[in-house]
């Protein structure tokens, strides 16, 4: 019985053991199936995920292309930026290492606090920057003491440098950190120290100057620590951009423009001290940290002039100088400008952020008169001998149009009208030829339209016409407006660049050169001929020479000595505020006005007179009179341009096709 029951038990056991074995086998089968699914069916997907885990793509930022002037001088380059970093896991005591570092180089208190905070927040192997922009000497000191500075390491980055600071800033522009809206999905833009061009050439040629980033795979572990660096593809450095600009001339033009008619004295000079002592507190603040002071002829401290000076090769349109004052230092933008500094730049009434050469629009004033003269000659309605009598004003209907000379110029021919800048003469001419001819010639010579210069931010200025006025204001054109337009006032607006271009086209034999600042790769294309009678152009050139070299020329003060290069030009004074009859009666318009109501001073010129090579345009904002303020600046800049790069066979290689009337001079 016992045996039978035991056999029962054994039978049940055996049967059930087989069932259990079957169950286990089934479960192990499930494991096998899962293994197959993961390692065979889904293998590719997991392989990819595993690689994604294992490797991170590391981008090596490309070296940004430089900006060079025509002689290869760097206006923007890349500077080694030495920085000291600390790695927490390589030192026992971060604070001790930092205090050791501070006995070697200067580390500000707040940097120490920041580092101590950052070190705790970041992972132990992530380096934290302690100080940046160290000198080579400081780096050498740190390197020598490295054994006593556990966890400290020296890294080299690159940062953009503008050696000439504010001198060419409106051309080069600046680079700054990439903003949210500028992200395009290109991973290189997300690198922490990547910078992109925000204005000027930096912006215009940004893509080419960026280059392409190198790519390298790095093997990382689960914490992100780099285990191994694998070879990758090298990046390509960005393209250098060479400009036609001559930085020496640019620097000269900027300084000459800023100085105006004042004298720049060292701050410690007794005259400067005296002037400062008498100056208003606001003016003293302005010069608080400066080493030099501008003192005018009366011994008063003045603020630097603002405005623009443009030097253009009349045959090729190459821009040799394009000064805009005041400027600003683009270097701080690299690191990031404080909100306060940015606000100051934005609200500064002198507009340092503006590139006044291409975006400043001013009434051309009397510099416009050559166009009226040319329009008259081209129309055949007047000739060089056409004479008008200037009694000091012209009456049209019941409005009296004044000449700048209250007492009038008497009888004048065309050449004299330019030399003495008689307004009445041009009222008469304009009356005779009408606004249409004037607008047409002005446009052909580059006003009222974009010149197409390769600098961002250009504005088109304005040349009024009947159609324009009707379309804009709905009121038909008035004859009086023709008269005002003929002396470059009224609706007329031009940029300094346009004025330089106009001058170039007037004196280069009527070739429609196009201004440009990028250095051409090949020989320049021949500029289109504007089909203007060369005799008429010759008359204009002679008249402009008379302005400077004639006995009664408005700019005769800039004639210089007989040894100086002979130049021609035209002054202009553009009213900012209309002179009312009341002003005229009281004589108040001659008194000192607040800066922002003073007239703009203009000068356009060229030289040498016999074989023009450079055109210059100077606008001094609220500078007073063209002949007193702008003409001396223009003459100096022009003569400096001719001195630096004198016309002649040696220098003609890059300056384009010589024109027939060009001579060595």
């Amino acid at each position, binding site marked *: 019985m016992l*045996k039978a*029951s*035991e056999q*029962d*038990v*054994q039978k*049940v*056991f*055996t049967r*059930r*053991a087989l*069932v*259990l*074995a079957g169950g*286990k086998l089934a*479960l*192990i089968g*499930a*494991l*096998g199936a*899962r*293994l*197959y699914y*993961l*390692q*065979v069916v*889904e*293998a590719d*997907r*997991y*392989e990819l*995920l*595993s*690689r994604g*885990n*294992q490797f991170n793509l590391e981008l090596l930022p490309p070296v940004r292309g430089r900006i060079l002037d025509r002689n290869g001088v760097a206006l923007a380059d890349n500077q080694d930026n030495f920085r000291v970093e600390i790695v927490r896991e390589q030192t026992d005591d971060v604070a001790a290492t930092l205090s050791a570092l501070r006995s070697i180089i200067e580390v500000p208190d707040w940097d120490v606090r920041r580092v101590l905070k950052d070190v705790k927040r970041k992972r132990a192997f992530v380096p934290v920057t302690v100080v940046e922009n160290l000198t080579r000497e400081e780096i050498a000191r740190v390197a020598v003491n490295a054994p006593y500075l556990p966890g400290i390491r020296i890294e080299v980055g690159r940062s953009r440098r503008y050696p000439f600071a504010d001198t060419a800033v409106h051309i080069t522009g600046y680079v700054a950190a990439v903003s949210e809206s500028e992200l395009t999905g290109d991973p290189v833009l997300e690198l922490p120290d990547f910078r992109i061009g925000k204005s000027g050439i930096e912006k215009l040629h940004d893509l080419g100057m960026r280059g392409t980033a190198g790519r390298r795979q790095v*093997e*990382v*572990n*689960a*914490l992100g620590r780099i*285990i191994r660096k694998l070879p990758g593809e090298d990046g390509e450095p960005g393209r250098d951009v060479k400009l036609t600009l001559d930085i020496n001339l640019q620097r000269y033009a900027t300084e000459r423009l800023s100085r105006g008619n004042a004298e720049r004295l060292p701050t410690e000079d007794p005259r400067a001290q005296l002037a400062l002592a008498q100056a208003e507190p606001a003016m003293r603040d302005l010069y608080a940290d400066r080493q030099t002071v501008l003192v005018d002829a009366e011994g008063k401290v003045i603020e630097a002039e603002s405005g623009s000076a443009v030097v253009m090769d009349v045959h090729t349109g190459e821009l040799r100088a394009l000064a805009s004052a005041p400027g600003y230092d683009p270097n701080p933008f690299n690191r990031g400008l404080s909100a306060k500094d940015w606000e100051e730049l934005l609200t500064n009434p002198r507009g340092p952020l503006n590139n006044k050469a291409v975006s400043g629009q001013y009434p051309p004033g009397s510099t416009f008169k050559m166009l009226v003269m040319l329009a008259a000659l081209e129309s055949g309605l007047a000739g060089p001998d056409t004479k008008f009598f200037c009694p000091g004003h012209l009456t049209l209907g019941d409005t009296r149009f004044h000449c700048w000379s209250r007492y009038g110029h008497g009888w004048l021919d065309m050449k004299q009208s330019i030399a003495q800048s008689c307004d009445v003469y041009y009222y008469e001419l304009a009356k005779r030829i009408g606004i249409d001819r004037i607008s047409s010639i002005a446009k052909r010579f580059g006003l009222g339209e974009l010149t197409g210069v390769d600098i961002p931010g250009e504005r088109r200025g304005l040349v009024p016409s009947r159609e324009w006025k009707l379309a804009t204001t709905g009121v038909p054109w008035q004859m009086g407006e023709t008269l005002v337009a003929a002396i470059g006032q009224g609706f007329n607006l031009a940029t300094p660049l346009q004025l330089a271009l106009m001058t170039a086209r007037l004196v280069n034999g009527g070739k429609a050169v196009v201004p440009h600042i990028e250095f051409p790769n090949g020989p320049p294309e021949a500029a289109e001929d504007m089909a203007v009678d060369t005799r008429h152009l010759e008359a204009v050139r002679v008249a402009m020479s008379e302005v400077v070299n004639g006995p009664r020329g408005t700019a005769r003060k800039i004639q210089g000595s007989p040894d100086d290069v002979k130049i021609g030009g035209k002054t202009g004074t553009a009213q900012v505020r209309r002179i009312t009859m009341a002003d005229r009666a009281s004589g108040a318009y001659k008194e000192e006005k607040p800066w922002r109501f003073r007239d703009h001073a203009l000068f356009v010129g060229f030289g040498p007179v016999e074989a023009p090579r450079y055109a210059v345009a100077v606008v001094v904002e609220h500078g007073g009179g063209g002949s007193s303020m702008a003409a001396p600046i223009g003459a100096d800049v022009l003569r400096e341009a001719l001195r630096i790069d004198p016309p002649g066979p040696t220098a003609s290689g890059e300056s384009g096709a010589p024109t027939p009337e060009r001579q060595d001079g």
Partner: protein
Amino acid sequence: MAISFRSDGLNPPELSIGQKLVAINWLLVLLVVTIAGVGCLMLYSAANGDWTPWAYRHALRFGIGLTAMLTIALIDIRFWIRTAYLGYLAALLLLGAVEIMGEIGMGAQRWIDLGLFQLQPSEVMKICLVLALARYFNGLTYEEVGNPLNLIIPLLMVALPAMLVLKQPDLGTALMMIAGSGAIFFLAGVRIWKFLALIAAGVAAVPIVWQFLREYQQKRILTFLNPESDPLGSGYHILQSKIALGSGGIFGKGFLKGSQSHLNFLPEKQTDFIFTMLAEEFGMVGASCLIGLYVLVLAYGFAIAIRARSQFGRLVALGVTTTLFLYLFINVAMVMGLIPVVGVPLPMISYGGTAMLTMMIGLGLLLGVSVHRDVRIARAGVEED
């Protein structure tokens, strides 16, 4: 004297130590050594090609475990049936003691340090429970097993330690105890409908049990159900383990070349996730081979059980086999993302002495059953005559 002298209803004569040594199933021992050898290699790899800190100690522990296993194999099986209840009681007391100590001491230390090993009462209990249940069912007739009253005592024997372990909380061990005991109940002849009824009751109890689970246990189950929901949090382990497994492919990335493991994407690669590392480095081929080795051990377990003459021997053999199976299945299924992460190691491969020691003692018992397969044991645990 002769082994061949055998007949039904008669016990064979006592074997000498030498005869017992000969009777030991050395092939099974070789399998176990092979598995432990694989373990050493994987631990060597886990340390980036270094015998320290894991592989060396693993080998040392295995040596001790092997000695224990062979010693246990030589001990007469009747000794184990006599001491089964005593051992169970001792294990239960230990379990209760560390539970109380765990409550008192701030750190939840659930083990007693024995130098090279940590004695974990819950692990000891796994073996003692098998022995105690085997003793209880040994000699019960099929009819007696059918009487529900006779199931009260063994159910309590399971429930008490399971509750204590759950309270620790160690869900994995508790589940293993319950599942292992369930297998013994099943083999002993408990009627199938009772299992079905219990399963039905269990399913009904899920919402109630859910309330008692710790938050992290709930989270583990939820994460298991949808690991991608939280790839950086709780699901990270499962996801990384699956990536490691999957990227291993058929032939693996090669010894010491598992990127997931060596770059620390894989968590706990020297303990619970060591199978993943093996599968990453040796691919499906290697993983299948290892599972194959375990299956061979399991097959030996079944063969030994079926050939044993005593119900005690049979139940111990399959109890131990089932424990090994549960370790294997839970661990491998866990790292493959088939079941939630419950923290069960892979015996003889994973670093950590406890599971290995448990399994070596169990396998020692299994070998013992094999050596003493012809010994008949009466209900009371005494020799039958």
